């Protein structure tokens, strides 16, 4: 039977835009354009490479997000994924990472999987805990933060490059992996890929389809509550050290005052 790969992708606000928060302290999605999280492009790329190497695999991209999140799916499909699943429900608004992982896990089970591929973190939330939460919820092994990953004979093998050591890791499928931005440059959608993406199936699911209750997710169901948000103060001109012979001493004094040295 063919290898079923599910890639979790997130639709995030463009980091080069002017990102803001809405009144309920959630991300203001109207204020800025969204896109497929750059870190998830690495996940899509690795899934496609595994699929190409296996010769008999199907890559499904999965997102939980509002209507516009279909753009992230479309991009992943144009890169070469076979089909997409979009979980979209008004009640999902404000869901935290615990709730998101619950929705993703249900949707992955609903789709069927041998391997789940995630990026190392989202470029907006940057928590990087979804892969571990998913593995726990799905009851399968997790092999995270890989810079190299291959699948053969029902086993996923990967390399994790740490500060102190490089680890070679293995797990029996089904499993969850996450890949880093060192795993290999993500491909650009080709013209043919873009044209083909339009015709690929996108399944829409809501909380009912997944057997989830609105109370388990959303802003009210979140385990954490954001009380207030404050914009980072604008950058100031900074301190200019004029070197009149004892510039080095002044620099050292400044760094010491900031507790850097």
């Amino acid at each position, binding site marked *: 039977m063919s290898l079923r790969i599910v890639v979790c992708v997130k639709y995030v606000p463009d980091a080069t835009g002017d990102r803001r928060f809405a009144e309920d302290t959630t991300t203001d999605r109207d204020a800025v354009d969204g896109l497929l999280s750059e870190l998830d492009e690495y996940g899509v790329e690795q899934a496609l490479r595994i699929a190409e190497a296996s010769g008999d695999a199907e890559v499904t991209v999965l997102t939980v997000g509002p209507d516009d999140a279909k753009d992230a799916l479309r991009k992943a499909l144009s890169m070469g994924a076979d089909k997409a699943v979009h979980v979209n429900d008004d009640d999902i608004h404000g869901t935290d990472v615990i709730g998101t992982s619950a929705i993703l896990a249900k949707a992955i089970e609903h789709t069927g999987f041998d391997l789940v591929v995630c990026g190392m973190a989202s470029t907006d939330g940057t928590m990087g805990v979804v892969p571990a939460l998913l593995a726990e919820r799905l009851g399968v092994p997790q092999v995270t933060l890989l810079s190299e990953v291959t699948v053969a004979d029902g086993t996923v093998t990967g390399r994790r490059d740490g500060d102190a050591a490089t680890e070679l890791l293995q797990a029996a499928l089904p499993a969850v992996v996450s890949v880093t931005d060192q795993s290999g440059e993500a491909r*650009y959608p080709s*013209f043919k890929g873009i044209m083909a993406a*339009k015709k690929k199936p996108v399944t829409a699911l809501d909380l009912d389809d997944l057997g989830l209750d609105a109370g388990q997710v959303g802003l009210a169901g979140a385990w954490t509550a954001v009380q207030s948000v404050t914009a980072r103060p604008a950058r100031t001109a900074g301190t200019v050290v004029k070197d009149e012979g004892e510039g080095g001493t002044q620099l050292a004094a400044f760094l010491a005052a900031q507790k850097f040295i």
Partner: protein
Amino acid sequence: MSSKDFDLFRISEEHEMLRDAVRSLAEAKIAPFAAEVDEQARFPQEALDALLANDLHAVHVPEEYGGAGADALAMVIVIEEVARVCASSSLIPAVNKLGSLPVVLSGDEALKHRYLTPLARGEGMFSYCLSEPEAGSDAAGMKTRAVRDGDHWVLNGVKRWITNAGVSEFYTVMAVTDPDKRSKGISAFVVEKSDPGVSFGAPERKLGIKGSPTREVYFDNVRIPADRIIGAEGTGFATAMRTLDHTRITIAAQALGIAQGALDYAKGYVRERKQFGKAIAEFQGIQFMLADMAMKLEAARQLTYAAAARSQREDGDLTFFGAAAKCFASDAAMEITTDAVQLLGGYGYTRDYPLERMMRDAKITQIYEGTNQVQRIVMARNLP
């Protein structure tokens, strides 16, 4: 009373996605070398590699021959986005279309298979050989001869200003087969770089598009099999002109891209540059210049896209639209890039900033594939 799904006068979602994809590719893989390619007047190999890796080097080739089968508007978008960061590099996809379109339009099935397939696979680029030292605007005054000899044609002559000469594997060559019939006595042929008797002149030393090689091509008793003729004998000039109807739109696309690159850069600069205690963007004199630049660019873009749609449909008024788009967009690009240099003041005049390069690159779009004077002759003869 708005309806967001009103789909006239906007390009499709797929075309926008293509623009996004080519823009990120061009910014990451082509832009970093643009200044160096210009400075050293060297071939933009990095751009060719990036375009090949992403199947963007010749997107116009139909799917039957292994190509991407992109429509004329998609082609325009690819060229626009490459030219936005490096005009020299944009001649790779543009001239692949120019060189091979005679085969697409008039070649027989065997010739199409033989030459479009390797082009699509990235095994060889295609050049277009029409101009000669004594035959520029008056292209029908060419002297290059092709004489029939049994199952072969024998070519002799000189073509000048041939883009990608020496780099391309394949050359569409227009040559006189019946000197008594002027334009109706011209035929088109495919010549290969490796055919004995083909050689190249020294690279021209140009004002702009310095990364795009322009050389003479010499044909010294070049014997080619008779089946290398493109279409029937005597139809070569008509094929060459029909080709230009379509490809002038790609020159318009280059002009748009160069102008967009200049406008984007200048727009950012005026926000940062402070004089008289404020950003120069706050002066109305500067704002009016930017407004004019954006207006001209957008008008040129709309005309070019309308022309591209006509190219795809092969509408009856394509000849007028192709000439109009090329002429208008290239004139606009020259004005916009000149004004963009002005907005940077002295800095714009130096090679530390990309604008003087863009201004030099814009100039060629008013000259090749028929000067803008010639475009006006074409338009006047084909008034809508």
